[in-house]
């Protein structure tokens, strides 16, 4: 029990950033709850509730990495009750983190009873039942959503190659697909949702506990000896040294790989234009995520070549552009095809395509700026940029006619991209390689 509590403490309060995020999230949620009991619903309160939930979730974002690391550590086999306690702590985290949204939602609904005439006792009882159902439905859906998001986070933070990112992408795609469906179909039964939730959590738990045995069976049947051989890897890797070192030598992997989650989504989901644009914009930023490790990896290049750090920067930049042009190309074609298929207005396509390009450019330069590791300033900037992109995407889809605003916003984003490039270039001129050390532990276990 003590161990589980300690684990929970580690997830939510392991670093200062996480402590702040968890605390802020909790306080905002409580404040929203209290306010919703007295004030009518409004977009502001809705936004507060959303932000509180998100902040609280982000506060626990250390969970997937910590969990993954401890689960893979040999020591966890020796810790008494290690795996079980680890699992329990993860489940409790998911249950806690999913709580703010349904709670604030329900409190908002509760207030709505008041001003509507004189309801009969049956009506009140019915209303209460409906509220309870809404609570459990929302809660279970959010639980599943959060759980999958954690899985995606784990893929993205623990794997350090393109294939890992792709795996994370695929999971995110599934995540964004399934709950959206649920929310759109309001007649989903509470029991169905609860069952779905229970089944998801239970299967994950069982899989986790049985994983050592399964892995052993896998080894028995000769399925891999632990070496990383991702699909598409050829026996001879060709490319320039720059590209090879930075991981940009094979853009087709990401380019073609993107197709998988997108096609998955077309098969499964129902979508409005805004969701699509939103979706694709997120995708366009992944290409840049690889750029985040460029600084650290380029140290070898600097040692070998006769380039100064500024020259190195332009070489690296060029390498990433070579990579991104391929990936973006595919994405743009995808956008056009889907657009025609779904009969999206041409205006939307016209505003959407630049957005995709901007997304890639912004995230690439953000990644290149990470010469001092991912600290608070960089994280905040990254989140801000992501939110801006998403906001513009949604805006472009909703108000496709208001061209001027959208164009202005996109120009603004373009200016931001230039500013980020300037900042990145500056940073590289004074780069201190001792400070951009990636998690050594992750490198040591990159084969795991």
């Amino acid at each position, binding site marked *: 029990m003590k161990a589980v509590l*300690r684990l929970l*403490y580690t997830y939510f309060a392991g670093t200062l950033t996480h402590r702040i995020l968890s605390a802020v999230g909790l306080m905002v949620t409580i404040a929203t709850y209290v306010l919703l009991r007295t004030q009518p619903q409004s977009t502001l309160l809705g936004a507060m509730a959303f932000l509180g939930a998100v902040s609280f979730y982000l506060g626990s974002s250390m969970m997937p990495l910590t969990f993954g690391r401890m689960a893979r550590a040999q*020591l966890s086999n*020796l810790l*008494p009750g290690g795996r079980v306690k680890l699992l329990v702590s993860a489940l409790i985290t998911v249950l806690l983190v999913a709580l703010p949204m349904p709670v604030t939602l329900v409190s908002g609904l509760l207030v709505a009873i008041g001003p509507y005439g004189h309801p009969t006792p049956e009506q009140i009882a019915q209303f209460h039942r409906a509220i309870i159902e809404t609570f459990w439905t929302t809660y279970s859906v959010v639980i599943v959503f959060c759980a999958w998001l954690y899985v995606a986070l784990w893929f993205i933070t623990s794997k350090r190659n393109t294939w890992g990112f792709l795996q994370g992408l695929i999971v995110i795609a599934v995540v964004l697909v399934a709950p959206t469906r649920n929310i759109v179909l309001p007649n989903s039964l509470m029991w169905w949702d609860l069952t779905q939730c229970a089944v998801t959590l239970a299967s994950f738990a069982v899989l986790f506990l049985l994983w050592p045995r399964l892995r052993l069976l896998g080894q028995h049947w*000769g399925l891999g000896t632990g070496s990383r051989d991702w699909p598409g890897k050829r026996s001879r890797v060709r490319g320039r040294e720059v590209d090879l070192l930075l991981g940009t030598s094979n853009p087709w992997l990401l380019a073609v790989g993107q197709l998988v989650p997108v096609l998955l989504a077309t098969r499964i989901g129902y979508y409005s234009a805004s969701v699509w644009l939103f979706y694709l914009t997120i995708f366009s930023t992944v290409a840049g995520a690889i750029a985040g490790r460029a600084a650290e990896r380029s140290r070898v290049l600097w040692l070998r070549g006769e380039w100064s750090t500024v020259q190195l920067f332009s070489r690296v930049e060029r390498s990433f552009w070579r990579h991104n042009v391929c990936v973006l190309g595919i994405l743009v074609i995808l956008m056009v095809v889907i657009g025609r298929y779904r009969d999206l207005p041409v205006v939307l396509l016209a505003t959407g395509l630049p957005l995709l390009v901007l997304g890639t450019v912004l995230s690439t330069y953000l990644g290149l700026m990470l010469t001092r590791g991912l600290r608070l300033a960089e994280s905040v900037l990254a989140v801000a940029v992501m939110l801006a992109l998403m906001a513009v995407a949604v805006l472009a889809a909703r108000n496709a006619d208001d061209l001027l605003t959208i164009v202005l916003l996109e120009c603004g984003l373009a200016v931001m991209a230039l500013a980020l490039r300037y900042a990145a270039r500056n940073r590289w001129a004074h780069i201190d390689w001792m400070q951009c050390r990636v998690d050594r*532990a992750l490198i*040591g276990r990159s084969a795991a």
Partner: protein
Amino acid sequence: MSNPTVQAEHLSKAFGHKQVLRDLSFNVMPGDVIGVLGKNGAGKTTLLELMLGFTPPSSGDIRVFGHESRQLPGAIKKRVGFVPQQDELLDSLVVSDQLNLIASFYPHWDKELVDQLCAAWDINVSARVKTMSVGERQKLSILLAFGQRPDLLVLDEPVASLDPLARRQFLEQLVELSTDASRAVVFSSHIVSDIERLANRIWILKEGRLYWHGELDALKESIVRLHVQATGALPERVDLPGLLSWRRQGSGATAIVKDWSQQSTQAFQEQFKCDVRIESLGLEEIFLELHR
């Protein structure tokens, strides 16, 4: 005769087609400090992992405190400590949080000892793990195992990255631990001098087999180097009981022999009309000679 801490019988381990360990049988008794020596890839880490139940044996049996190593109950796990070759610390945590996290799993955690060692070993309790050097991280890993006060302590190359001072401090702590005759320590190391100081029993792993498993003193007394000086020519090859190697050098030769005795010296001197000088060997020399 107390119960063995670890008991293995005809233990073998293969990964796919690669046979790593063959037919090992041994006992670890409480009070033993066992040094495991072997070339890289000889199977040291595999042996330790088998002992801790991380992987099942391909054939044979291994028991820890009487239980199958793969099915150690929680109560037994509390008595086993392990220091892995590559540390498994959580980088984003502060040292004190990391210590508290592991401590929460063990009810008999010795907080006093841990605090005392943190001070003695120069570990900054409020530093973040990712800012620590490799040596400091290794010290912390070792500390985590000591805090448990285990009855069986298994260490895989624990001092590979430690400076001489830190190594000596670690050895002193192990000595302290081994004054308690109910605890057993098994550690593998390349630093032969450490093993010579601390171990009372040696396991030498060669080609997957336990080439030697016995007392260190007996090993040193058994294997000696003969320096032969002859007036005439010496044969290219010689057939002697216990001969491990024979090298001719000019009018002399060097031989490594096992279980040598005074009578053997006299007989040899008479047979080959030569003079023989006996040199006893340190553990490193023995290891080198066994692998030449």
